[in-house]
Structure formats: structure tokens, C-alpha cells
């Protein structure tokens, strides 16, 4: 076996509360496609950002041809022959194809020779067996074609390590086949490729070696022929579920909402489920499974364009968040810092914001005292730790911020609460408290839709689990039948094994 081109040795990286990478080592060999898989948050992105110089590791080192290297920015990565292609192609829409290929070159002389540049670009594209007009602006290209331009750029830079971060996420099956052909021909030219993907079948189809990351740690690394699909899935999910709080068993209440064939163009279709009072319905799936889009549709931010929503026996249309709140549907966003909370305002002001009309005196001024008493009530109920009710929310910990956001929507007295990634980015203790809160809410007769990428969380907290993949409903599992393997298999689109695990 040849010597590896790039070795990552004992790399660790920590962000605030989360250990994104913990002592990960990885070797990339020339002429090999190295598949990297893991759940959301397993540390894949962090690893490639360290390779390309966007982040610097806390510990560990990178060896290029056996020599330690420091990569501080994209220029240095490029100089070392390391290039990355992202899910969203990073092209310059105003420049033409040839310019996009050569924009980063430092060695093409002081003056742009347009004729030569176009000829060279054509030659590179011809080598890739691709037909594109090199004088066309990148603006009009399909995503697949933009990706090709990026690959051409990498090749023109004599890339030795090509990192592909979910390059197939927005491609059609036909385009994926084309891409794979391209990737294999690069491999045959001796390039080392790190291929990151969400669709397991694809990763296994293209890779020569498969490495699994989980919670920032390297779990396994095998040659492709040595592993089975089942083993990879087990490595991806195999976590100790006992860390998680389980929802208490509550008698299922009456039917609250029925959704039939809900769809939205270019997002999701055929979503059908019932949700009962006192029940937690989990939404599982990987990034790009469009779970959040369903949540946004139910809350009226991005209304659905087909299908029906029946709430307490009446057919309803939800066209705006105001309508949703009136009907008793509330939605707590996944991005609490950007969309959920006003960080520079106090806890009290945040909680009363959606229902501010009820806190006005006859003159239209805010009744501070009423605000404070509401906030105090919630502080006790959810045991929020805050220096004071008027302290800025910014100063609270992630878990307490999350609880404030819950209060904000609970204050509207909803019948259905949609929680999108309620425990993302908060530590284990706070997680357990949020889980406790969700369980309590269900016990009070609230229906909860829990959208979460954290599979053990969904499994522990949900009475039933709806699994989505790329905008389609892959099935609904009862709590008793749901296993990590089964849900993950459905989410990754492995139909055959899905049937075996969950008949």
C-alpha cells in the first residue's frame, strides 16, 4: 500500500459546550475514495473545515506526505493541493465558466489572456468529458454543472486531496451517476478523495474505504468489502440510550389534528399523520429530509399548497403564524439565536412578545407588572435559572434560553406545540430538563410534534415516530416497534432492510 498523502493525527476541536471532534485520526491514500459517514453533528463538517484551514484544531496535527503542515486559510490549503467542494457550489455567478475555473490561479501571468484561458478551460472540461460553453456565465448553470465547474477548478489546481461534502444532496439520480463517473476517473488519476454523504447507499457504492464518525469520535474505519450496510448503520447510531430521559407513559387523549396528503412544491409531499392530545409525535430524518418545512407549513410561515389539515374535526387552512396561533398551533424554531429569541431583550419581554396585545392597558402601553408576573410564573414552572427576570436573555445558558423560548410559545396556550431541534447545542443536563418539560407538557394534554436529528432523543421521547427522507414520508413507527437501526435505515432510504427491521 502506498504511503498516505494526508494524515490527520489525534485531532480534537471543542466549541463552547460541545466536543465537536475528539481524538480523530484519519489517513487518506492516493487513488482511493474514502467515504465518511455519520449522523448530523457527528463532526464531519468540523473535520473538513480543519483540513481546509477554516478552523484550527485544539489538539492534534495534519501530516502531508509525512511532514506536519499548518493550514491557516484557503490559500494555504490550495498551495498544499487540498480542495473542497461543498453541497452548495461556491461559484461566482457573474463570471463565466472559464474565469470560475482559473480565478484562484496565481501562476497565469500578470495579465488575463482571455483566449488562452478559454482554450485551457475547454481542454480541462474535455478531459472530464463534459460539454459546457466556457464563455457562459455561471449564473445560468444547473447545480450539477456548477459542481462540474468546481471539480474542473480543483483539477486545474493539481489537487491531490479532494474533499466532497455531500455533493449529491441536490442532484438527480442521472446527475449522480455522472458525478460518480467523474469521481472515479479522478481516483484513477491518483487523487485522494474524501467523500461525505448522507445517502448511505451512495457512499457505499462509491467508496473504497468507509469511516464512521459519531459524536466527534471515530468509531470504525474499514475497507468497503469488509463491511456490510447493517454494520455501518450500527456504528453510526450505536449509542447508549439510557443517557436519555424517557417520556412517561400517558393515556393518549382525543384526536387533535389529522393531516392528509400535505404537500408543498419542491419541498415535501404526501405527509399524512394523526396527532392526539397528550402524545409526542417524533419527526425523524437526516438533514435535507424537509422535516422543518412541514413544521413551517403547519405554523403558516410557508403554507402547504396541497393536502388538508383537520383540526378538532374542522378542516382548516393555516396561512400565517397569526392564524396558527389563533387555532392553537405554536412552533419553536430550531435556530433560537437567529429566529427564536431576541437576545438583547429580557426574559419577560421575550415571553410576552407573541401575545403582546393582551399585556396592554387601555392607553396601549405595556403593563410591565403583568409581564413580570407571567414571566415569574413560567420561571417557577420550568425552573429557569436566570439572574433576574429583566436580565438579557443573552446572559442565560443555552438550556435556559431554550426554556425561555418554550415559555414564549406556551404563553399563547397552544393545543399543539411543534418543537424543532429543541436540544441542539445544549449540554446533557439541560437536555434532560428540556425532555422533562416536554413530558410534563404532554401530561397536561398538549400534543407535541418533536422534530429532532438526535435519534436516541426521538426514540426515547416519542409515542410514535414519523420518518422522512427528502420530502417523503418513509413510514410511521410505533414506540414499541421503533429501533435505531430501523429508523435510521428508513431515513437513509434503505427500503429492503427497512422492511426486515420494521415489517
Amino acid at each position, binding site marked *: 500500500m502506498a504511503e498516505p498523502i494526508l494524515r490527520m493525527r489525534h485531532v480534537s476541536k471543542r466549541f463552547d459546550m460541545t466536543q465537536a471532534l475528539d481524538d480523530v485520526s484519519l489517513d487518506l491514500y492516493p487513488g482511493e475514495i474514502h467515504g465518511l459517514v455519520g449522523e448530523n453533528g457527528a463532526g464531519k463538517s468540523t473535520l473538513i473545515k480543519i483540513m*481546509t484551514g*477554516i478552523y484550527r484544531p485544539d489538539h492534534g496535527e495534519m501530516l502531508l506526505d509525512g511532514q506536519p503542515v499548518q493550514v491557516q486559510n*484557503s*490559500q494555504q*490549503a*490550495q498551495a498544499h493541493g487540498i480542495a*473542497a467542494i461543498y453541497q452548495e457550489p*461556491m*461559484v*461566482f*455567478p*457573474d*463570471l463565466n465558466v472559464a*474565469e470560475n475555473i482559473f*480565478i*484562484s*490561479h*496565481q501562476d*497565469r501571468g*500578470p*495579465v*488575463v489572456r*482571455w483566449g488562452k484561458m478559454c482554450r485551457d478551460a475547454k481542454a480541462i472540461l474535455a478531459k472530464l*468529458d*463534459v*460539454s*459546457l*460553453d466556457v*464563455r*457562459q*456565465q455561471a*449564473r*445560468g*448553470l*444547473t447545480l*450539477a*454543472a456548477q459542481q*462540474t465547474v468546481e471539480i474542473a477548478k480543483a483539477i486545474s*489546481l493539481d489537487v491531490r486531496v479532494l474533499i466532497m461534502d455531500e455533493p449529491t444532496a441536490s442532484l438527480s439520480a442521472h446527475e449522480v451517476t*455522472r458525478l460518480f463517473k467523474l469521481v472515479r476517473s479522478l481516483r484513477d488519476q491518483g487523487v485522494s478523495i474524501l467523500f461525505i454523504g448522507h445517502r448511505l447507499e451512495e457512499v457505499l457504492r462509491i467508496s473504497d474505504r468507509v469511516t464512521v464518525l459519531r459524536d466527534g469520535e471515530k468509531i470504525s474505519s474499514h475497507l468497503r468489502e469488509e463491511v456490510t450496510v447493517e454494520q455501518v448503520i450500527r456504528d453510526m447510531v450505536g449509542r447508549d440510550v439510557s443517557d436519555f430521559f424517557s417520556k412517561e407513559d400517558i393515556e393518549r387523549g382525543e384526536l387533535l389534528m389529522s393531516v392528509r396528503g400535505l404537500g408543498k412544491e419542491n419541498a415535501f409531499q404526501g405527509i399524512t399523520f394523526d396527532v392526539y392530545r397528550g402524545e409526542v409525535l417524533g419527526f425523524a430524518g437526516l438533514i435535507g429530509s424537509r422535516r422543518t418545512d412541514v413544521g413551517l407549513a403547519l405554523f403558516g410561515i410557508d403554507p402547504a399548497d396541497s393536502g388538508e389539515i383537520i383540526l378538532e374535526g374542522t378542516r382548516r387552512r393555516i396561512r400565517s403564524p397569526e392564524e396558527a396561533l389563533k387555532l392553537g398551533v405554536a412552533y419553536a424554531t430550531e435556530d433560537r439565536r437567529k429566529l427564536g429569541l431576541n437576545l438583547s431583550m429580557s426574559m419577560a419581554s421575550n415571553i410576552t412578545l407573541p401575545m403582546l396585545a393582551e399585556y396592554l392597558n387601555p392607553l396601549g402601553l405595556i403593563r410591565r407588572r403583568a409581564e413580570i408576573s407571567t414571566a415569574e410564573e413560567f420561571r417557577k414552572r420550568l425552573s429557569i435559572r436566570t439572574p433576574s427576570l429583566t436580565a438579557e436573555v443573552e446572559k442565560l445558558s443555552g438550556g435556559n434560553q431554550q426554556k425561555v423560548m418554550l415559555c414564549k410559545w406556551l404563553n399563547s396556550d397552544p393545543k399543539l406545540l411543534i418543537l424543532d431541534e429543541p436540544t441542539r447545542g445544549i449540554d446533557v443536563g439541560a437536555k434532560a430538563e428540556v425532555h422533562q418539560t416536554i413530558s410534563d407538557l404532554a401530561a397536561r394534554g398538549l400534543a407535541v410534534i418533536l422534530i429532532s436529528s438526535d435519534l436516541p432523543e426521538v426514540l426515547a421521547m416519542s409515542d410514535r415516530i414519523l420518518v422522512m427522507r427528502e420530502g417523503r414520508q418513509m413510514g410511521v413507527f410505533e414506540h414499541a416497534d421503533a429501533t435505531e437501526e430501523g429508523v435510521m435505515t428508513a431515513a437513509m432510504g434503505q427500503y429492503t432492510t427497512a422492511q426486515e427491521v420494521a415489517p
Partner: protein
Amino acid sequence: MRFLIRRFQPEQIRELFLVVLIVLVVVFFSSQIPGYFSARFVNRISTSVVVVAILAVGQTLVFLTRNFDMSVGSIVGFTAYFLGQQLWHHPGIPPWAAVLLAIGVGMLMGAINGVLVAYGRVPSIIVTISTLAIYRSFLVEYSDAVPITTNNLPDWIVNLPPLSLFSIGDVEFRLIFGIMVLVVVIFQLVLSYLPFGRRLYAIGSNPAAAEIAGFPAQRMVFTAFLLSGGLAGLAGFVFLARFGNISVLAGIGLEFSSIAAVVVGGVSNMGGSGTVFGAFLGALLIDLLENSLFRWQVISEFWRDAILGMLILSAVAIDYVVIGRLRRAWARAGLQMSVEEAQEKPEVAIHAG
């Protein structure tokens, strides 16, 4: 048709449209004002457009990177005053040194903007509005309210504006107009043929991609501000030569004129597209309208600004609606052509469709 689509980009059509518009404006006012179009009028326009056109070139560089330079009005004022004072106290300074001094002072001021925007990551609108005020106050403090007058200046600079390189009939090609033409040509070439120029387009076109593309994007944004400052310094030199009398109010409002010129000239405020030549045409159209409306008694002078405002708004509207459509049409045509070509040689798979 295919040839035409390959040959011309929407931006060039837009520049052609500006030229037509300029001709239409001249024709219109010729029919309204007796004796409007004369050699004297051409000479006046070619002199008065110089300052704003030079500023518009610098503003274009900054605009391409999705930034603004609001401080140029104060840079013009300060360099004009500073240079005037130096020439007053040291009349022996040779002309070339005077020009370099003005450019140098301007670059220094531009460098401060550039450092804060590119390396300090402060939004350019905030940085340059602040320096607009700071540079102006600096001028007020520095000048001690003593104005520069024509009498204090050496003869060569006072006599510079009417100095003609050559003339065709009564139409003169004046030196300062020549300087402006040189600036426009040089920077048009820079933007088309230097990697630096192309990367300015890249930065404005997709700032996130520019960060990770592997070229020093920050340094290029800095350089754009540096050059904008330097060109504002050069404009300050021309300003001093043209007006001779410089008070602390010199150059107020020029930042708006330069931005108006680039916007009318088709430089996108979202960066990534536009040309120096277009910005020059924008400056010319605005200057022409200002001078013409001034002579046209039908419209009250209070409406002149409103007309200019409407011109800017319609330029932006054209940018969003017409140019947007043209671009999409071009993109479709490009795809169509790729597909057709792929079908002509069936062994090459279709990848663009």
C-alpha cells in the same frame, strides 16, 4: 443570433442603451433651447464631468466588491484644500509632484477606510459615513477657516482647466478631460485584463465563495478602497484647478454624485457586475442633464434634483427588471446552445441540461 448572444452580454446592451439615452437627451434639449448644442456647450460639459467621472471610477471598484465609499466628498475637499495650501506656501512644487501629492493624501485616507472594512469587518456604509464626517471636520480644523483663493495659487494650476491638447473646430480636447479619459481607459483595462480586476468581480459576485476560493480577498477589498481614495485625491487636484477658490465646504455632496453616476451607469449595488465605461456614461448623463435643466427655463430649479432622483430610481428599476430578464434569457440561450452542441456530438453526454 447565436453569434450575437455569445458576442454581447446584457451589460453591454445596457451601455449601448445609455449612449442612446444621452443622444436622446441632447436631441430633446436641442429642440427646446435655441442654440443649445454648440462647441461651447460641449467644452463646458467635458470640463464639468471630469471630477465626478474620476470619482465614479473609484466608486465602481468599491461597488464591485459589494461595498460603498461615502467618504469621497470629504477626501476631494481635503486634498483640494491641502494641495492648494501647499502650492500657496511652496509655489515651486512642480505639477507632477502636486498631482502625486494629491493622490498620495487621498490614498492615505482611502487606506483607513480599507483597513476598517476589509480587516476590521465593519460594514462599509458605516465606516465611510463616519470618515466622511471625520475627514470633513479634519479639514475644518486644519484650514482654520482660511479659504484658498485663486490669487494664492501659482499660474500654471489656475490656467490648467482651459488648457487644450488639440481642437477640432471650436470643440477642444482639454488636458483635464484627457486625464479623465486616461483614468477611464486604464481602469477599464485593469478590470478586464488583470487578475485583480476579475477578482473584484468575483468578491462582489459571491463574497462567501471568495473567502474560501484561495485568493487574498481581504487584501483586494482593501486595495479597492485604497484606489478609490487615490482617485478621489486626483479628483481633488482637478477640483482645485477648476475652482481655485477652496473653502471648508469644497466637495460636499460629491459622494452622492459619484454613487448616482455608478448606479445610473449600471454598476450593480449587489456587486459583481458593471464597468468603468458604464460609470463614465452614467456620470456624463447626469452632468448633461444637470447642465441642460439649468438652461431650460420650463422646469423650476427645485425640480431638478427630483428629476435626477427619478433617473436614479429608474436606473435601479431597469437593473432589477430588464437586466434580470436579459440575464435569464441569456442563461437559457446558453443552456440551449450547450444542449444543441451536445446533441451534435452525441458521444459527449449532456451535462449542462
